[in-house]
């Protein structure tokens, strides 16, 4: 298997992102045309067979999600694309929207067709204002060419796509918070049940998928589920856009076939990260965003794919890989992570709002020689459990993932037990 592939990003940088002709010359819209001849169940069968896992971070099987929505009574059903991309270290959706927006739109139109939905929405983070305009242009171009609007390609199917802007809130990446924001409210998550497949946008059944997930849909249909699966890993087909940043020589977006590259390849291969700058050693890397786990040199030979990483206690998450050299203190790094969460918490639930504040203080205390006590250790442990198990939504629930993984990876740095016990702060 090659280390790099060109599937989701085929044509990126080489074609005019807004040219239908360019896109069609690469096979664009063939999937949509084929989809018109398929029953919704057949479309979903391909997606299930492809073992396409959600690319936003949660990795929920797309086939299962689409199947659930198909079986839900109610109309209209809405298609929502989560283009909030707030996870630090992640910039792949930006790339897709800038370079191959028509592939994203084709995927959404196929989804619209599958569920006989009249409307799709792309919720784009407010900081991507330029991209919102780019998408609006692309949508207009598709409307003019009959790929959107009334009676698409002469069929009875009509579908409109609108872009909706965020305004700066990481928590709006959480699907239910996103829907609240899309409705013109503050982006605080919703109580579940009911789940948003049943009660979603404007209380209607809704599909929410990530940009990269939608962009993969045309590929699944043109290749067929079986081939798509083979292009990746036996338990999850297709490719993943990896966002490499930190102290590597060649940061950027790299499309790797799932299972076809290891973490070592990603960070060190000359085709990808090209190793750590300035002749330094790798210290650790942070996978999947701030809410993902840390890994170290001992993990480098794990294949980059959902299940192998999960088995190792690591994760794909959003696809972010932040590689840091050995000069970076993991505790200081995690303090920054905790500060991030403490600012981005929506604030409404106790464990996340209060917990993240205190977590950041504890991580500060861990850096003061001699300050850390066994009592602090116990309290930190209780706090982490409460945050992980009792937070209202995924933000709070995963805010301690990085720290928990670091405690295993660098036990010496987090114990503080060897230092003489200081008096209570």
């Amino acid at each position, binding site marked *: 298997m090659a280390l790099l592939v060109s599937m989701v990003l085929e044509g990126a940088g080489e074609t005019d992102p807004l040219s239908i002709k360019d896109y069609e010359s690469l096979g664009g819209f063939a999937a949509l045309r084929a989809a018109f001849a398929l029953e919704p169940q057949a479309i979903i069968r391909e997606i299930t067979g492809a073992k396409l896992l959600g690319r936003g971070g949660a990795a929920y099987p797309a086939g299962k999600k689409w199947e659930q929505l198909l079986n839900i009574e109610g109309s209209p059903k809405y298609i929502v694309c989560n283009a909030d991309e707030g996870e630090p270290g992640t910039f792949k959706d930006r790339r897709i929207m800038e370079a191959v927006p028509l592939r994203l739109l084709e995927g959404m139109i196929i989804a619209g067709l599958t569920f006989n939905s009249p409307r799709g929405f792309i919720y784009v983070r407010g900081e991507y204002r330029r991209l919102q305009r780019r998408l609006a242009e692309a949508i207009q171009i598709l409307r003019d060419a009959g790929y959107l609007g009334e009676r698409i390609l002469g069929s009875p199917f009509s579908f409109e796509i609108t872009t909706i802007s965020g*305004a700066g809130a990481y928590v709006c990446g959480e699907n239910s918070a996103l829907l609240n924001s899309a409705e013109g409210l503050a982006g605080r998550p919703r109580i579940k049940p009911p789940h948003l497949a049943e009660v979603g946008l404007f209380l209607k059944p809704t599909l929410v998928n990530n940009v990269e997930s939608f962009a993969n849909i045309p590929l699944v249909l043109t290749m067929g589920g079986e081939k798509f699966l083979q292009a990746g890993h036996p338990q999850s087909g297709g490719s993943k856009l990896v966002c490499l940043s930190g102290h590597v020589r060649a940061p950027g977006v790299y499309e790797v076939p799932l299972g076809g590259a290891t973490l070592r390849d990603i960070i060190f291969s000359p085709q990808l990260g090209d190793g750590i700058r300035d002749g330094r050693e790798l210290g650790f890397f942070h996978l999947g965003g701030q809410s993902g786990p840390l890994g170290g040199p001992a993990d480098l030979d794990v294949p980059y794919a959902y299940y192998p990483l999960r088995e190792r206690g690591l994760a794909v998450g959003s696809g972010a890989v932040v590689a840091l050299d050995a000069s970076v203190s993991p505790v200081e790094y995690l303090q920054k992570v905790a500060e991030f969460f403490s600012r981005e918490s929506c604030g409404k639930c106790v464990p996340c709002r209060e917990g993240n504040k205190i977590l950041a203080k504890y991580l500060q205390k861990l850096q003061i020689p001699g300050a850390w006590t066994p009592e602090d250790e116990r309290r930190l442990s209780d706090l982490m459990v409460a945050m992980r198990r009792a937070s209202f939504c995924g933000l709070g629930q995963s805010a301690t993932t990085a720290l928990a993984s670091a405690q295993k990876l660098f036990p010496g740095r987090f114990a503080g037990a060897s230092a003489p016990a200081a008096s209570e702060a």
Partner: protein
Amino acid sequence: MPELSESQARAIMADFHDDPQRLIAILLDIQEASGANRVEKKSALLVSETLGVPLTRIYEILTFYSMFSLAPRGKYLVEACESAPCHFDGGETTLSHLADILGVSPGETTADGLFTLEKSACFGACGHGGAFKIGDEAYRGGSRNQIASVIRSYRENSPRLREGLAWLY
């Protein structure tokens, strides 16, 4: 500081068909048109009345989302990323260069009212040194001179000077 007129605000709302669902987009446009990069209470009251939404909902939106400001800001909002991937890759340096060049601390506006410096969370420009953003445009981290060029490009309205650090793939 001229802030927008009632008719300007009404025109913005009309663009969105007075639809309360588009409240966030409406408020962002009002903020942009205000000239002070913020939404003032007067505008919020007008939106509340015109769209028929309670003032409380508007205030919650204005205070919940990072992009909004209640207090006046400079014409150009300069945001330095403080998230971990940038912070450990030159982010502190970028921030200190910006503070030095502009002569203000984060949260402050330059005396001529042109620039407000703020720290921000990740805006998807990772991997090229501490990134910063001016308005809708993202920039890579660079040397003090390079950053100063970018600032000058806004001050003098000469876009060519920005190309050096413009964030590209």
